[in-house]
């Protein structure tokens, strides 16, 4: 089922949580809403579910306008961050709940409900636990039950709010892989919210990067990482370094120093240069580039992070680059480099 979010705005007590957001979710895709807390990603998810009503704008499920439909009528599967399992029901009863509460004309018979619950338990790899209560399960198992419960109603869309947020790192990685497998097996259109970029990039077909109630960029993992559309995306996804620069006649310079980077399509003026710390090549000190003095070095896993003051900029402006661990750079050494991948923003 395609989901189309059209010019949706949401205010809480006059405070805007989402500004005029539009998003097309393709049928069968696994899409991540990624952003820091307060970016509006959970609000957007809850609006799609119908747990919140938009202040303005529309939400379409396929060609159907779902904006005025209630949560019950939208038929979405929602998985909550803290599972929200019904503590007084067994695992099987939890999974069967959505079928049990249907009106009598569409409600499957009891045996059928039980059979569905068993089938789903098998799918989420929890066979044999149907008579346990939620308090007798681990966090990861609870989240699997929550997913099975959401899938039991054969939802048009699966919505997951920080599905792995309350789990420890080991279980997170396991469940991530498992969710991808389930998605590939069932083909549900799935939207999940996360603040963990690694999770979003690894799991999703497309990533929606959000900040302060706006969508900053929508694209595949490669696109948002390699071609960030805004300074925020550059800074939020992966590591980034930034230097204030000036463009003059198509050349990027720092003060009076030429960097050897050409920006022929850019008008003259002040800019910020963004690049990944590992996308740099060291150059000869005499060539045009960014040169500076090492003020700190840190060994991080297989690489060496080096902090520099940059010639032509105040000493308080530091920039970080990443070099192979074996590089001999030490404090107060001189280094010159040029970013191999970079972008300018106003």
């Amino acid at each position: 089922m395609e989901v189309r979010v059209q010019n949706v705005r949401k205010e809480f007590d006059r405070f805007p949580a989402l500004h005029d957001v539009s998003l097309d979710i393709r049928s069968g895709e696994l899409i991540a809403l990624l952003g820091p807390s307060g970016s509006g990603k959970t609000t957007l998810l809850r609006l799609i579910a119908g747990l919140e009503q938009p202040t303005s704008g529309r939400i379409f499920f396929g060609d159907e306008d779902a904006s005025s439909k209630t949560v019950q009528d939208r038929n979405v599967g929602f998985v909550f961050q803290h599972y929200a399992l019904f503590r007084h029901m067994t695992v099987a009863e939890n999974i069967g709940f959505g079928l049990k509460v249907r009106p009598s004309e569409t409600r499957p018979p009891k045996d059928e409900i039980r059979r569905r619950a068993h089938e789903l338990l098998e799918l989420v790899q929890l066979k044999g636990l149907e008579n346990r209560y939620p308090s007798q399960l681990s966090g990861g198992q609870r989240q699997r039950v929550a997913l099975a419960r959401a899938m039991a109603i054969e939802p048009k869309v699966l919505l997951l709010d920080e599905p792995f947020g309350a789990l420890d790192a080991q279980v997170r990685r396991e469940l991530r892989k498992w969710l991808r497998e389930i998605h590939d097996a069932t083909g549900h259109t799935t939207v999940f919210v996360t603040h963990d970029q690694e999770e979003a990039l690894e799991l999703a077909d497309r990533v929606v990067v959000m900040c302060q109630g706006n969508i900053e960029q929508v694209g595949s993992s490669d696109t948002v990482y390699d071609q960030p559309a805004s300074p925020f995306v550059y800074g939020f996804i992966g590591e980034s370094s930034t230097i204030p620069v000036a463009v003059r006649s198509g050349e990027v310079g720092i003060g009076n120093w030429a960097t050897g980077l050409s920006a022929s399509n850019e008008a003259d003026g002040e800019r910020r240069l963004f690049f990944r710390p590992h996308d740099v090549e060291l150059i000869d000190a005499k060539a045009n580039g960014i040169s500076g003095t090492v003020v700190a070095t840190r060994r991080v896993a297989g690489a060496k992070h080096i902090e520099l003051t940059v010639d032509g900029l105040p000493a308080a402006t530091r920039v970080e680059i990443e070099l192979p661990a074996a590089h001999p750079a030490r404090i107060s050494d001189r280094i010159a480099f040029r970013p191999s991948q970079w972008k300018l923003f106003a």
Partner: protein
Amino acid sequence: MADPALHAAQPDVPYISATTESRLWRAVLMAVAFVFLGVFLVLPLVLVFMEAFRKGVEPFFATLVEHDTIKAIQLTLTVAAIAVPLNCIFGVAASWAIAKYEFKGKAFLTTLIDLPFSVSPVISGLVYVLLFGSQGWLGPWLKSHGIEILFAVPGIVLATIFVTFPFVARELIPLMQEQGTGDEEAAISLGASGWQTFWHVTLPNIKWGLLYGVLLCNARAFGEFGAVSVVSGHIRGQTNTMPLHVEILYNEYNAVGAFAVASLLAGLALVTLVLKTLLEMRYGGEIAGARRH
């Protein structure tokens, strides 16, 4: 299992907490607490039963089967049977509204629910006299329509509802606030209607807290004196509840009768206390109010 060898190896120094007083002080404090409770609470309770049976078992039962006593017991049961369910419904509704919705005046509503705790019951009784009395605001109109409230069962029920009003709500509000709206949202996202959500999800989540509130509400409904005394009119056999009947018997120098009825109320209090303690022991985590009452 403790390993005796290992125990012996432990240094024989008793654990002393920084906030622990000396042994003497502890003994004094505990003695004060026990003596105080004994003199002011346990002794009167024991006296109630002693007085009730002072002339033997027969006069005790003779009082209980008297027409007026039976009527008083019936009235008390009737009033509680109306007031407790109504306050139960009101308490759940108010807690639901306060815990699950955001609205203006929420703090005010919460304060208002506590009002009966801070107002003297006599005053709440007088308010009903002002409202429904023959000189009151609604009294003449009601009288002309043949509806009697004051000095009749409806007045007693109203006064009882007023004073027992906060018990269920105060018990449920913190509990429901703590539980949040996650379970309800999950239920409606699975297609459950509002009523199904309440019945299958909310109610099971709050049932022990609700029972606890009902228990306290019921005990107070049986025992309420002040408010009921003002609105009842003290008509023997008609508008006398058990506590009022105790007073009448006592004023008539019928000590055995008075204490016999009082012993019933005291017995109810003891049963309530036992049930309350059992609930707290078994379901303490699900009874938010257990930490306050």
